[in-house]
């Protein structure tokens, strides 16, 4: 339907919306086909075919693993992402707006964010034990930085007249942050949030492999160690699908939130 309708409109907009995803899915199809052919040709138990893998995906998603592993992972990733978003925006904007405070904290921030995430896992296990809390804490320790740094940077570069106007209108404190600083920096914040979302998922898997007894990371590792090869591949495919789903939903939300920015940027994205 949508594709048919797009042919009647000559603006570049429908192309971007409909034709590009079609080409994108064609690429996925080609890889799936290549996977299938290669697996059939190799005929080995350590490399299941695409069809076998998709059947395993179906089994996993209709079995107990859905509620034991997949959904907890989704919850942890989203919880970690949400905490990172709030923490990153609040701290980032505050450090960016209050210049002196930002100068004091700059070295500390640089120091903390350059620590590799796996380093925190043993520490988090000691502090929080094994389980969801620990995993969420690890996710936050990695996903908070792209949000915080983007918010910080954008708050430092915010148009001075936006701030002068706000102050002339009597805005100060929380009202100034909420009504002017936050919307003015939202385009940068959203860019940081998108990175944080994919980081959340990646770090989630590391944390679950290293220190959890449930979740997608645990599931993949467990399947691998018990030689359930199609299930191992199925876990990876589910993870990839989740990543795609998160990003697609995120872009849809961004499109709604930032209509004004896309329009003022003069691009053809609206």
């Amino acid at each position, binding site marked *: 339907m949508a594709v048919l309708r797009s042919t009647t409109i000559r603006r570049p907009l429908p192309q971007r919306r409909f034709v590009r995803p079609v080409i994108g899915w064609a690429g996925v199809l080609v890889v799936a086909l290549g996977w299938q052919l290669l697996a059939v040709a190799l005929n080995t138990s350590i490399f299941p075919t695409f069809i076998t893998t998709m059947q395993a995906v179906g089994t996993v998603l209709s079995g107990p693993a859905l509620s034991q592993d997949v959904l907890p992972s989704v919850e942890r990733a989203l919880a970690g992402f949400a905490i990172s978003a709030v923490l990153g925006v609040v701290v980032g904007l505050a450090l960016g707006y209050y210049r002196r405070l930002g100068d004091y904290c700059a070295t500390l921030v640089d120091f903390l964010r350059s620590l590799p995430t796996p380093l925190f896992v043993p520490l988090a296990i000691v502090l929080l034990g094994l389980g969801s809390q620990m995993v969420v804490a690890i996710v936050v320790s990695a996903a908070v930085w792209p949000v915080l740094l983007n918010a910080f940077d954008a708050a430092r570069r915010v*148009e001075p*007249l*936006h701030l*002068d*106007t706000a*102050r*002339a*209108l*009597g*805005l100060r404190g929380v009202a100034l942050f909420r*009504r*002017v600083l936050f*919307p*003015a920096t*939202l385009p940068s914040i959203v860019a940081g949030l998108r990175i944080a979302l994919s980081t959340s998922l990646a770090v989630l898997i590391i944390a679950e492999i290293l220190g959890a007894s449930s979740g997608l990371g645990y599931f993949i590792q467990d399947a691998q160690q018990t030689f359930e090869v199609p299930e191992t591949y199925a876990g990876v495919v589910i993870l990839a699908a989740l990543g795609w789903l998160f990003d697609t939903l995120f872009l849809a939300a961004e499109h709604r939130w930032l209509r*004004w*920015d896309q*329009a*003022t940027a003069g691009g053809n994205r609206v």
Partner: protein
Amino acid sequence: MSEVLLDVAGLGKSLTSTSGDTLLINTDINLSLRTGEFVSIVGPSGGGKTTLLRTLSGLARPDTGTVSHRGATVEGVPPWMSIVFQDYTKTLYPWLTVEKNVRLAIRDVPKAPARQRVEAALAQMGLSGFADRYPWELSGGMQQRVALARAMICEPEVLFMDEPFASVDALTRSKLEDTVLGLWQQAGMAVLLVTHDIGEAVYLSDRVLVLSARPSTIIDTVEIDLPRPRAQATTRTLPRFHELHSTVLAGVEDPQSSEVAAR
């Protein structure tokens, strides 16, 4: 008789450049603004007109001297004033509709009556029907009228304007000048306008203050005794208009201004 609303005594202001040098911008500024008075400040570009306005409006703190309002020293940004800046593209918030931009100035008023007031203010500016548009969908002149509506809706005692008509075309400019004159006559607030356009200052004002080159101070005051109400076509063709224009121009070009600058 009108009373003194704003009194500025011995005001001085320095700014620190990015390279760390301290630059004296305004020095020993003395002026007063009476209720309902229209006063313009003219001076060369780069002379610190904007800095002066920022200090007078409380956006910046004076280094020396005082700004007082009805006898009380001004601290911070006072509620009795509004500002219209030159660059409307940066003072109207692009993420808010026209209506929400204006309503921001009366955000403590409940939503329903506030909306009504905004609609009335927009109608007065000839912007009925544009409430739900975004500022960037409007022409430059219309955007500046939105900024004026936002400045006027909280009924300020003093309206500060920093080159408000410098970014629009000549025709829009003269229309906006008359819009401001109409608002001023109707609302009766005091206006302090900063401009580099001498004709504009003479046409609009009761009094024109001439600022020297940097570090700037007021070197001349010209009373504008042109009859009101004024109109572009008639007022600007009066012989007296040209006399006053020449007087102000002579003040701007006075060697004293460069002498002050050399000190």
